[in-house]
């Protein structure tokens, strides 16, 4: 689900950066307030572990395929939402820098799509309410806790992956990258991520249950006395929080959708030929042809041009521009190859 730089337009990427930066700032502030420096090495080790753990193939029974671990829910269950979020941000940054998974400009969007939903939404709206709620009063305390862990991690992974995948669709569509209609794109992304979410949920469950059996104190909220809390987050409060979130995200997105990134881009840079000329204050008539020197240069140029006969009568036509574009691109490609060869030549000489 890592988005590459090419899938985002700069305005969308900027907005996502701002959103993720805000979440990061809040997390850092919260952790600093707790003055919990001890958490730092734990966060780093957990992040490194998730990073390495994502490379393990888990065989899905009954099918020939295999699944992988996603970090968000696991990290927030182990470290809490803020620390989990920061760990995810760091993992995503390293993935984008060293493994080409994602991109520098898309980092903000990737943090939002995977870390924010996985940690904050997954924790506050799913993990915490389920863990604190008195869901299985008839069960023995330990069995109830186990059932709740299974429930929370499976639901959490599915929900956070769905929201993440939906965000990818929204961001890509707003960026004007794909011609794929919004609905079709959604229909392509959501079902795949439903299956992935289920498998990831089960893997996360397996690991968390193992930790719960061995060292339950490592998990967040598990030791909170069920019932004693009487649910700080009731269903009503959860729904209200969810509604606020939807309105906020929807508001931000609609604000943005109306500004039409393509139009913005056009206005900024001027993609038509007229736009270029206007922006650069160039006019083809007085394009350096005034001076004597340039006239001479022009005549030299005419003689040296390697395709002298090949010129369009109406060079303003789209075809003319297209052909010069192609020829120019070829020149750039040749120049690039030349630079590459020269570089190698000089390095070899230096080594010798």
């Amino acid at each position: 689900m890592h988005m590459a730089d090419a899938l985002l337009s700069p305005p969308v990427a900027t907005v996502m950066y701002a959103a993720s930066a805000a979440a990061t700032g809040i997390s850092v502030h919260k952790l600093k307030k707790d003055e919990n420096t001890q958490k730092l090495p734990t966060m780093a080790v957990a992040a490194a572990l998730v990073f390495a753990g994502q490379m393990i193939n888990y065989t899905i029974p009954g099918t020939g395929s295999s699944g992988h671990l996603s970090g968000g829910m696991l990290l927030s269950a182990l470290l809490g939402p803020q620390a989990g979020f920061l760990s995810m941000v760091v993992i995503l940054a390293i993935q984008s820098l060293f493994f080409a998974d994602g991109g520098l400009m898309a980092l903000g969007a990737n943090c939002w799509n995977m870390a924010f939903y996985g940690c904050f939404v997954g924790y506050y709206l799913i993990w915490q309410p389920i863990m604190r709620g008195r869901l299985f009063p008839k069960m023995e305390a330990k069995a109830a806790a186990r059932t709740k862990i299974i429930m929370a991690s499976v639901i959490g992974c599915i929900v956070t992956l769905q929201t993440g995948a939906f965000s990818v669709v929204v961001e890509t569509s707003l960026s004007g990258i794909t011609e794929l209609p919004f609905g079709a794109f959604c229909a392509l992304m959501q079902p795949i991520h439903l299956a992935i979410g289920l498998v990831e949920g089960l893997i996360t469950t397996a690991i968390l249950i193992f930790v719960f059996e061995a060292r339950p104190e490592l998990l967040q909220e598990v030791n909170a006395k069920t019932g004693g809390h009487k649910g700080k987050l009731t269903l009503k409060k959860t729904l209200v929080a969810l509604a606020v979130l939807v309105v906020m995200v929807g508001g931000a997105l609609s604000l943005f959708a109306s500004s039409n990134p393509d139009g913005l881009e056009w206005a900024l840079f001027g993609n038509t030929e007229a736009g270029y000329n206007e922006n650069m204050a160039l006019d083809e008539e007085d394009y350096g042809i005034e001076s004597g020197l340039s006239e001479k240069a022009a005549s030299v140029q005419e003689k040296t041009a390697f395709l002298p006969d090949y010129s369009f009568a109406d060079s303003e036509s789209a075809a003319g521009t297209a052909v010069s574009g192609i020829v120019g691109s070829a020149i750039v490609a040749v120049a690039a190859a030349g630079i590459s060869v020269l570089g190698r030549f000089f390095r070899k000489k230096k080594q010798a």
Partner: protein
Amino acid sequence: MDRIDHAASELREMDDLAALSSPIHSIHPLAKLIVTISYIILTVSFSKYDLSGLIVMLLYPVIIFSISGIPIKTCFYKLRIVLPLVCAVGLFNPFFDKAPLMSIGSIAVSGGVISMITLMLKGMFCLMASFILVATTTMDAICAALRKIRMPGMIVTLLLLTYRYISVMIDEVSVMATAYKLRAPGQKGVHYSAWGSFLGQLLLRSMDRAEEMYSSMQLRGFSGEFQYADVSPAKPKDYLYTVFAVGIFFLFRMINIATLFGGIALGGSL
């Protein structure tokens, strides 16, 4: 599970590359960071049909690869991760956007084809740019640069620590995976009966390790933030490099150099 070993060798390779010396390696990390980010933003901002304008952006990675002597092959190897998703999104463009945009001889090329190629090139160029950054800058230097632009110390420390421990964890997981594979021959991945215990075991061990780590960090005087090896202050050449590179990118973005050159080559009748 060769993925793990691959990842380990990839990390090591990047570390080795960053430790080389070249004119590019010696540039201030902050300058490189700024140049890389402006390159990516400007590259991505090209209109989806502006293929000839975009092509010129190829010159930056090619020149830097050439000067710094980092192998372009390693970079292309990483494309296997970037291209599938970009392609998956771009491949539909030719089917939905069929309006002819230009023609080469008698063959009309539709807007969708152009926008697909543009998208793939953008993906490639951006990857090259970030690859250049990490291949010519050590992680310590990048972190120091991040600290200079007021990135919170906690995140930078976490980034450094995680980066350090990723190679440790990858090694451990790799040993475990090999051991598992030898005991479970012919199995594609981890059996579901071991889903929890496989990583869970390592997780428990790692949590203890983190505690030991913290104790040893405290014994060495850790007070919440690392003291970074000071990056030498920016020299005039660093400023020059930044201004020059970013200026050139803007120029490329504003003027379609390829069409300009093409026009000149075709006889000056621009």
